């Protein structure tokens, strides 16, 4: 039996000011079970009255060893674990993983599958931003927003259910395409959402954007300049709130994003309000992309959605009964999987939270030798002390919401 070792305050001494040692300032433990930390995040706060002198985040409560587990699974098995990382961006995680595998084995994806991927990724972005908007508003005491946002998110989850059979853990995007073609009702469901949602965004804006109770809590809070944001590794809406128009969909396009006409919204304040502004504008851009995607989808009606390279992608069920070769491929793929060539790739995609990067290394076998998830929440969380110093505890709640963290994403 291993003797449990006590963690003493001495080991954390260097993280707080000298005043904490004399008892002049107070140390307060916030979390890990606190509603405004958006999950199991623990913060050790050093307080002078109500003002934050130091903030020490403690993460790892949701660590599930996903990277280690994926190394022990074959490429197609490991994909199921990607859903469990950032549970608000499951399609995006699938996409990042599949793009990495496809780059590693040089697999082409048919155009129809690309379009479906883009539509779903953007729907997922809206769904994730809805959770952010709901929880951020809830933290700032706008209770009704939370209910509205979950109501709208429900529609998107229903769309996911209709295509994949699952509301959240979809595993719908697969290396070489997608699992199966979308159902017949898909286009109509998305079309309905496109008509319904713009009115809702206007409603949200009406409730929040000019609401003095909201503005007072978010303007000038948690300011970070563009240079500092880049140095801290900020990406996605958090960086764009500081005025840097950096978006992986534009600078390093994937899945055919270069063919879509959309803008990268930015704001200049660098504060909580600027990050709010950027995400609200992103709703409109995502709708634009989905609309264009639906047009493309119509043109590609009936086209294949999975690669025909059956060394990596299982052949369709109908072929197995008639083709010996298809049967062999099917058998080989489902018993031992495929071998990826020796090498390593890094694939970044734009998740709703920022840059989600997959570093995938292969040793030539049928399992990933090493997979590392560069997750936006992990990087944004470590800037929390920087953002929160000198603010009130009430502002800290707004700041945590504004960098949009998901603990499953940061702890992996």
């Amino acid at each position, binding site marked *: 039996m*291993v003797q449990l070792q006590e963690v003493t305050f001495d080991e954390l001494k260097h993280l707080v000011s000298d005043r904490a040692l004399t008892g002049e300032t107070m140390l307060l433990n916030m979390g890990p079970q606190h509603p405004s930390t958006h999950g199991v995040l623990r913060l050790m706060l050093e307080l002078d009255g109500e003002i934050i002198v130091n903030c020490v985040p403690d993460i790892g409560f949701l660590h599930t060893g996903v990277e280690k587990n994926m190394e022990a699974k074959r490429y197609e098995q490991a994909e199921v674990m990607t859903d469990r990382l950032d549970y608000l961006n499951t399609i995006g995680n699938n996409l990042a993983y599949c793009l990495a595998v496809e780059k590693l084995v040089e697999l082409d994806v048919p155009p129809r599958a690309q379009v479906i991927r883009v539509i779903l990724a953007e729907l997922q972005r809206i769904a994730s931003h809805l959770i952010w908007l709901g929880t951020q508003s809830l933290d700032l005491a706008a209770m009704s927003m939370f209910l509205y946002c979950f109501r709208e998110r429900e529609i998107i989850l229903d769309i996911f259910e209709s295509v994949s059979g699952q509301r959240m853990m979809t595993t719908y995007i697969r290396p070489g395409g997608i699992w199966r073609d979308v159902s017949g009702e898909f286009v109509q469901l998305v079309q309905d959402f496109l008509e319904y949602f713009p009115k809702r965004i206007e409603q949200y804006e009406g409730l929040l954007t000019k609401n003095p109770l909201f503005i007072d809590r978010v303007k000038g809070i948690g300011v970070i300049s563009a240079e500092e944001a880049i140095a801290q*590794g900020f990406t996605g809406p958090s960086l764009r709130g500081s005025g840097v128009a950096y978006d992986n969909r534009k*600078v390093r396009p994937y899945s055919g994003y270069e063919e879509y006409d959309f803008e990268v919204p930015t704001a200049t304040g660098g504060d909580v309000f600027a990050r709010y502004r950027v995400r609200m504008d992103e709703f409109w851009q995502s709708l634009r992309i989905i609309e264009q995607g639906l047009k493309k989808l119509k043109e590609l009606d009936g086209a294949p959605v999975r690669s025909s390279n059956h060394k990596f992608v299982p052949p369709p069920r109908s072929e197995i009964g008639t083709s010996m070769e298809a049967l062999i491929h099917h058998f080989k793929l489902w018993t031992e999987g495929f071998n990826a060539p020796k090498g*390593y790739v890094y694939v970044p995609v734009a998740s709703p939270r920022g840059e989600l990067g997959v570093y995938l290394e292969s040793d030539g076998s049928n399992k990933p030798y090493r997979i590392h998830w560069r997750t936006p929440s992990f990087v944004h969380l470590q800037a929390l002390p920087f953002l929160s110093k000198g603010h009130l505890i009430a502002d800290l709640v707004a700041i945590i919401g504004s960098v949009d963290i998901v603990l499953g994403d940061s702890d992996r």
Partner: protein
Amino acid sequence: MDEKLKNAIQAIRKDYDVDKLTFRGEYSMLVSPENVVDICRQLRDDFGFNMLSSLTAVDYWPANEPRFHVVYQLYSTENNITLRLRVQVPGENPKIPTIEKLYPNANWHERELWDMFGIQVDGHSDLRRILMPADWEGHPLRKDYPLGYEEVQFSFNAEEIDKKKPYVKE
């Protein structure tokens, strides 16, 4: 290949003895631990690599010299180019210098490196475990660290697995 990336790689190769590796259109440089801070500083100040995208390591156990590769993924927001540095670290007393002063977000990445691989980071301001509990034993992402369940012993690998059993340490 992007002209600016080419210049950066050429300049580094002129000053330091590094190997260039290419795979699937991505460029990596194999550098030794003592040069990594200087190379990072040069890349950041002269070639605009202002963002550290990702920092991780790969364990090549049972190889020992080098056992680990520490992988730095650098990105330049103005030039839109990316470059990877691979630092070779031996298995005995693995150690790298910190780049926290150049890229503040390396702080947590290097803590994760220590936590998951047991790679010592010299000069780090706060080298504690980050994801595992503070009193955890071992470094989970090392290849000689079992996945958690009991490994099944067969006659061909009984001895090999025996070496990894906890009672060997006692």
